[in-house]
């Protein structure tokens, strides 16, 4: 199916565990983004990527790692999850102008 998909949709993990959120897009868009959404903060950019093997930090990168070995995939890893990383995470891709968003991953760190 064409589009951008995130997995899993819901995840509960324990403090200190490593967890990876997946993002896959079928358009071959150059730019991909990871945002977190928390009440009162809107969407905050975690990392973004301009192309395969090119990534850069956003506003709130601490505690997160990204990679982009293939254009279509942009996984986000929480190396050692903390309760403050409980949030809804959105992946997006952008070809020229507008961005397309996945459905989000609701992550709870207990």
């Amino acid at each position, binding site marked *: 199916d064409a589009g951008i998909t995130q997995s899993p949709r819901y995840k509960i993990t324990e403090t200190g565990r490593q967890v990876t959120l997946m993002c896959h897009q079928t358009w071959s868009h150059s*730019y991909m*983004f990871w*945002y977190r959404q928390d009440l*009162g*903060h*809107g*969407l*905050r*950019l975690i990392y*973004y990527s*301009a192309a395969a093997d090119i990534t*850069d930090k*956003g*506003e709130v990168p601490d505690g997160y790692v990204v990679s982009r070995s293939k254009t279509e995939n942009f996984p986000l890893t929480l190396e050692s999850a903390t309760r403050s990383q409980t949030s809804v995470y*959105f992946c*997006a891709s*952008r070809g020229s*102008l*507008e*961005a*397309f*968003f*996945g*459905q*989000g991953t609701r992550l709870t760190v207990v």
Partner: protein
Amino acid sequence: SQQGEEDPQALSIQEGENATMNCSYKTSINNLQWYRQNSGRGLVHLILIRSNEREKHSGRLRVTLDTSKKSSSLLITASRAADTASYFCATGEMNTGFQKLVFGTGTRLLVSP
């Protein structure tokens, strides 16, 4: 810090009324975009206005841009209950060639039947 700030944070109106929400941003832009988010869903692109444009229309949407004030407004005319959602403005940061897309905090719109 975030590039855009929307105002008001929340807006409650009746069906048929117009809804206006505002966005202020901090740095130079080449375009400004508005997105909509229904509860529990991802964001959906609504409309884009380029920095050399002052006004743009799309259906019931009207966007204005004032680059001298670094502000934009989104007007939804004849609101419907289905317009209930959160609305965000987004801009690209100049120091990344306008490609790093940064969002504001959003306006929550409630349209009552």
